[in-house]
Protein backbone atom coordinates (compact mmCIF):
# COMPACT_ATOMS: atom_id res chain seq x y z
CA UNK A 1 0.00 0.00 0.00
CA UNK A 2 1.43 3.38 -0.96
CA UNK A 3 1.60 6.33 1.36
CA UNK A 4 1.47 10.01 0.57
CA UNK A 5 2.20 13.08 2.58
CA UNK A 6 -0.44 15.75 2.61
CA UNK A 7 -0.25 18.82 4.85
CA UNK A 8 2.62 17.28 6.78
CA UNK A 9 0.70 14.10 7.54
CA UNK A 10 1.41 10.71 6.04
CA UNK A 11 -1.70 8.89 4.86
CA UNK A 12 -2.26 5.56 3.16
CA UNK A 13 -3.61 5.73 -0.38
CA UNK A 14 -4.53 3.06 -2.90
CA UNK A 15 -3.08 2.92 -6.41
CA UNK A 16 -5.74 5.30 -7.70
CA UNK A 17 -4.90 7.89 -5.06
CA UNK A 18 -7.94 7.37 -2.83
CA UNK A 19 -7.32 7.47 0.89
CA UNK A 20 -7.68 4.08 2.53
CA UNK A 21 -8.59 5.24 6.02
CA UNK A 22 -11.22 7.97 6.04
CA UNK A 23 -10.47 8.76 9.69
CA UNK A 24 -7.01 10.10 8.74
CA UNK A 25 -8.72 12.87 6.76
CA UNK A 26 -8.83 16.52 7.71
CA UNK A 27 -9.59 19.77 5.91
CA UNK A 28 -5.94 20.58 5.26
CA UNK A 29 -5.42 17.22 3.60
CA UNK A 30 -8.54 17.83 1.51
CA UNK A 31 -7.17 21.16 0.33
CA UNK A 32 -3.95 19.51 -0.85
CA UNK A 33 -5.66 16.64 -2.64
CA UNK A 34 -7.94 19.21 -4.28
CA UNK A 35 -4.89 21.09 -5.50
CA UNK A 36 -3.74 17.94 -7.27
CA UNK A 37 -7.11 17.93 -9.01
CA UNK A 38 -6.71 21.59 -9.86
CA UNK A 39 -9.47 22.73 -7.49
CA UNK A 40 -9.37 25.51 -4.86
CA UNK A 41 -11.79 24.51 -2.13
CA UNK A 42 -14.53 26.93 -1.08
CA UNK A 43 -17.06 26.64 1.74
CA UNK A 44 -19.51 25.04 -0.67
CA UNK A 45 -16.92 22.43 -1.61
CA UNK A 46 -16.48 21.60 2.07
CA UNK A 47 -20.24 21.27 2.53
CA UNK A 48 -20.32 18.70 -0.27
CA UNK A 49 -17.34 16.87 1.24
CA UNK A 50 -19.03 16.73 4.65
CA UNK A 51 -22.20 15.41 3.05
CA UNK A 52 -20.26 12.70 1.21
CA UNK A 53 -18.34 11.70 4.31
CA UNK A 54 -21.50 11.43 6.40
CA UNK A 55 -23.30 9.41 3.74
CA UNK A 56 -20.29 7.15 3.26
CA UNK A 57 -20.01 6.57 6.99
CA UNK A 58 -23.63 5.41 7.02
CA UNK A 59 -22.77 2.97 4.26
CA UNK A 60 -25.00 4.66 1.69
CA UNK A 61 -24.30 4.26 -2.01
CA UNK A 62 -23.27 7.63 -3.35
CA UNK A 63 -24.66 8.95 -6.62
CA UNK A 64 -24.56 12.39 -8.16
CA UNK A 65 -28.34 12.35 -7.96
CA UNK A 66 -28.19 12.00 -4.19
CA UNK A 67 -25.74 14.89 -3.90
CA UNK A 68 -27.99 16.89 -6.23
CA UNK A 69 -30.88 16.38 -3.81
CA UNK A 70 -28.82 17.21 -0.73
CA UNK A 71 -29.88 20.85 -0.83
CA UNK A 72 -26.23 21.95 -0.97
CA UNK A 73 -25.85 22.16 -4.70
CA UNK A 74 -27.72 20.96 -7.80
CA UNK A 75 -26.13 18.56 -10.27
CA UNK A 76 -25.08 21.33 -12.63
CA UNK A 77 -23.45 23.11 -9.73
CA UNK A 78 -21.71 19.92 -8.67
CA UNK A 79 -20.11 19.61 -12.11
CA UNK A 80 -18.91 23.20 -11.74
CA UNK A 81 -17.43 22.55 -8.30
CA UNK A 82 -15.64 19.35 -9.33
CA UNK A 83 -15.14 19.52 -13.10
CA UNK A 84 -14.40 16.46 -15.20
CA UNK A 85 -15.71 13.81 -12.82
CA UNK A 86 -17.77 15.25 -9.98
CA UNK A 87 -18.38 12.16 -7.90
CA UNK A 88 -14.93 10.66 -8.34
CA UNK A 89 -13.04 13.86 -7.63
CA UNK A 90 -15.20 14.87 -4.68
CA UNK A 91 -14.92 11.40 -3.15
CA UNK A 92 -11.16 11.42 -3.49
CA UNK A 93 -10.93 14.85 -1.89
CA UNK A 94 -13.34 13.76 0.85
CA UNK A 95 -10.96 10.94 1.73
CA UNK A 96 -13.53 8.22 1.11
CA UNK A 97 -13.49 5.20 -1.21
CA UNK A 98 -13.97 5.54 -4.93
CA UNK A 99 -17.72 5.48 -5.59
CA UNK A 100 -18.93 2.15 -6.92
CA UNK A 101 -22.13 3.42 -8.52
CA UNK A 102 -22.95 3.98 -12.19
CA UNK A 103 -25.23 6.94 -11.64
Amino acid at each position, binding site marked *: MATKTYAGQTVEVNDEGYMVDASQWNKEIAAEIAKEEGIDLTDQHYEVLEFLRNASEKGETLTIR*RVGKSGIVD*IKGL*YKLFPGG*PLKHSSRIAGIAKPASC*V
Partner: protein
Amino acid sequence: MAEAKESPLKKVCIICAKGTIEDVYATLVMANGAVMEGIECKVFFTFFGLDGITKKQMGKIKTATVGNPAMRAPGGLPFPTILGMLPGVEAGVSAMMKSQMYKLDIPPVDEFLEMITAGGGEIYACKLAMDMFKLEKEDLHEEVKDVLTIGDFYGKCGGENTQIIFT
Protein backbone atom coordinates in the same frame (compact mmCIF):
# COMPACT_ATOMS: atom_id res chain seq x y z
CA MET B 1 -4.09 1.99 -14.62
CA ALA B 2 -0.89 2.97 -16.42
CA GLU B 3 -2.14 1.41 -19.64
CA ALA B 4 -5.55 3.04 -19.39
CA LYS B 5 -3.84 6.40 -19.04
CA GLU B 6 -2.02 5.98 -22.33
CA SER B 7 -4.92 6.91 -24.52
CA PRO B 8 -8.11 7.58 -22.61
CA LEU B 9 -11.50 7.71 -24.25
CA LYS B 10 -12.38 11.34 -24.95
CA LYS B 11 -15.80 11.26 -26.53
CA VAL B 12 -18.69 8.85 -26.95
CA CYS B 13 -21.53 9.26 -29.43
CA ILE B 14 -24.45 7.02 -28.56
CA ILE B 15 -27.27 6.17 -30.94
CA CYS B 16 -30.54 4.85 -29.50
CA ALA B 17 -32.95 3.38 -32.06
CA LYS B 18 -35.30 1.41 -29.83
CA GLY B 19 -37.86 2.51 -27.29
CA THR B 20 -37.98 -0.19 -24.63
CA ILE B 21 -36.95 0.44 -21.03
CA GLU B 22 -33.71 -1.48 -21.46
CA ASP B 23 -32.71 0.26 -24.69
CA VAL B 24 -33.49 3.75 -23.49
CA TYR B 25 -31.99 3.24 -20.03
CA ALA B 26 -28.86 1.55 -21.37
CA THR B 27 -28.36 4.65 -23.48
CA LEU B 28 -29.01 7.02 -20.58
CA VAL B 29 -26.77 5.13 -18.15
CA MET B 30 -23.92 5.04 -20.66
CA ALA B 31 -24.36 8.71 -21.51
CA ASN B 32 -24.53 9.81 -17.90
CA GLY B 33 -21.64 7.51 -17.01
CA ALA B 34 -19.57 9.21 -19.68
CA VAL B 35 -20.16 12.78 -18.49
CA MET B 36 -19.55 11.64 -14.90
CA GLU B 37 -16.10 10.46 -15.99
CA GLY B 38 -15.39 13.70 -17.78
CA ILE B 39 -15.91 12.11 -21.21
CA GLU B 40 -17.67 14.27 -23.79
CA CYS B 41 -20.99 12.74 -24.79
CA LYS B 42 -23.53 13.20 -27.55
CA VAL B 43 -26.69 11.13 -27.87
CA PHE B 44 -28.81 10.63 -30.98
CA PHE B 45 -32.33 9.26 -30.61
CA THR B 46 -33.88 7.79 -33.74
CA PHE B 47 -36.81 5.58 -34.80
CA PHE B 48 -38.60 4.12 -31.77
CA GLY B 49 -35.84 5.45 -29.58
CA LEU B 50 -37.59 8.82 -29.98
CA ASP B 51 -40.08 7.63 -27.35
CA GLY B 52 -37.32 8.22 -24.82
CA ILE B 53 -37.28 11.96 -25.52
CA THR B 54 -40.90 12.57 -26.55
CA LYS B 55 -42.76 14.33 -23.74
CA LYS B 56 -45.92 12.28 -24.22
CA GLN B 57 -44.15 8.90 -24.24
CA MET B 58 -41.02 9.20 -22.12
CA GLY B 59 -42.80 8.36 -18.86
CA LYS B 60 -44.51 5.34 -20.37
CA ILE B 61 -41.74 3.26 -21.91
CA LYS B 62 -42.06 -0.47 -21.38
CA THR B 63 -40.19 -3.75 -21.45
CA ALA B 64 -41.39 -6.30 -24.00
CA THR B 65 -42.97 -9.30 -22.33
CA VAL B 66 -43.41 -11.13 -25.63
CA GLY B 67 -40.38 -12.41 -27.49
CA ASN B 68 -38.04 -11.67 -24.61
CA PRO B 69 -36.50 -14.99 -23.54
CA ALA B 70 -34.22 -13.39 -20.95
CA MET B 71 -37.19 -12.14 -18.97
CA ARG B 72 -37.98 -14.39 -16.04
CA ALA B 73 -40.45 -14.28 -13.19
CA PRO B 74 -39.09 -13.28 -9.77
CA GLY B 75 -37.03 -16.14 -8.38
CA GLY B 76 -35.76 -17.03 -11.83
CA LEU B 77 -38.82 -19.08 -12.85
CA PRO B 78 -39.50 -19.23 -16.57
CA PHE B 79 -41.99 -16.70 -17.88
CA PRO B 80 -43.93 -18.22 -20.80
CA THR B 81 -44.42 -15.88 -23.72
CA ILE B 82 -48.13 -16.67 -23.74
CA LEU B 83 -48.47 -14.98 -20.33
CA GLY B 84 -46.78 -11.90 -21.69
CA MET B 85 -49.65 -11.50 -24.15
CA LEU B 86 -52.25 -11.05 -21.42
CA PRO B 87 -53.57 -7.51 -20.90
CA GLY B 88 -51.79 -5.64 -18.14
CA VAL B 89 -48.80 -7.99 -17.95
CA GLU B 90 -46.50 -5.72 -19.92
CA ALA B 91 -47.53 -2.74 -17.79
CA GLY B 92 -47.05 -4.71 -14.57
CA VAL B 93 -43.65 -6.04 -15.54
CA SER B 94 -42.55 -2.59 -16.68
CA ALA B 95 -43.69 -1.00 -13.43
CA MET B 96 -41.69 -3.61 -11.55
CA MET B 97 -38.56 -2.96 -13.62
CA LYS B 98 -38.88 0.76 -12.94
CA SER B 99 -39.40 0.30 -9.22
CA GLN B 100 -36.26 -1.86 -9.05
CA MET B 101 -34.31 0.86 -10.84
CA TYR B 102 -35.61 3.67 -8.64
CA LYS B 103 -34.38 1.72 -5.64
CA LEU B 104 -30.88 1.98 -7.10
CA ASP B 105 -31.32 5.75 -7.43
CA ILE B 106 -31.81 5.55 -11.20
CA PRO B 107 -34.11 8.46 -12.03
CA PRO B 108 -37.09 8.67 -14.38
CA VAL B 109 -36.20 9.40 -18.02
CA ASP B 110 -36.85 13.17 -17.93
CA GLU B 111 -34.70 13.66 -14.84
CA PHE B 112 -32.00 11.45 -16.35
CA LEU B 113 -31.87 13.67 -19.44
CA GLU B 114 -31.44 16.70 -17.17
CA MET B 115 -28.60 14.98 -15.33
CA ILE B 116 -26.81 14.32 -18.62
CA THR B 117 -27.16 17.86 -19.91
CA ALA B 118 -26.18 19.24 -16.48
CA GLY B 119 -22.87 17.46 -17.01
CA GLY B 120 -22.45 18.93 -20.47
CA GLY B 121 -23.86 16.03 -22.50
CA GLU B 122 -25.90 16.85 -25.60
CA ILE B 123 -29.13 15.19 -26.70
CA TYR B 124 -30.27 15.15 -30.34
CA ALA B 125 -33.24 13.81 -32.26
CA CYS B 126 -33.16 12.27 -35.74
CA LYS B 127 -34.82 14.42 -38.38
CA LEU B 128 -35.83 11.52 -40.61
CA ALA B 129 -37.53 9.63 -37.77
CA MET B 130 -39.22 12.83 -36.58
CA ASP B 131 -40.69 13.31 -40.07
CA MET B 132 -41.73 9.67 -40.18
CA PHE B 133 -43.57 9.83 -36.85
CA LYS B 134 -44.93 13.32 -37.59
CA LEU B 135 -43.24 14.82 -34.57
CA GLU B 136 -42.25 18.45 -34.05
CA LYS B 137 -39.48 19.90 -31.91
CA GLU B 138 -42.17 21.05 -29.41
CA ASP B 139 -43.14 17.40 -28.84
CA LEU B 140 -39.67 16.71 -27.49
CA HIS B 141 -38.33 17.25 -24.00
CA GLU B 142 -36.68 20.63 -23.35
CA GLU B 143 -33.27 19.03 -22.88
CA VAL B 144 -33.16 17.98 -26.54
CA LYS B 145 -30.73 20.39 -28.11
CA ASP B 146 -31.59 20.01 -31.77
CA VAL B 147 -33.12 17.92 -34.52
CA LEU B 148 -30.37 16.70 -36.84
CA THR B 149 -29.81 14.60 -39.93
CA ILE B 150 -27.52 11.64 -39.38
CA GLY B 151 -24.91 13.46 -41.45
CA ASP B 152 -24.98 16.44 -39.10
CA PHE B 153 -24.70 14.08 -36.15
CA TYR B 154 -21.66 12.37 -37.66
CA GLY B 155 -20.25 15.85 -38.07
CA LYS B 156 -20.29 16.11 -34.27
CA CYS B 157 -18.62 12.72 -33.79
CA GLY B 158 -15.14 13.65 -34.98
CA GLY B 159 -11.94 13.80 -33.01
CA GLU B 160 -9.33 11.51 -31.57
CA ASN B 161 -10.42 8.68 -29.28
CA THR B 162 -14.09 9.02 -30.11
CA GLN B 163 -16.38 6.02 -30.17
CA ILE B 164 -19.81 5.62 -31.68
CA ILE B 165 -22.04 3.22 -29.77
CA PHE B 166 -25.30 1.84 -31.15
CA THR B 167 -27.59 0.45 -28.50
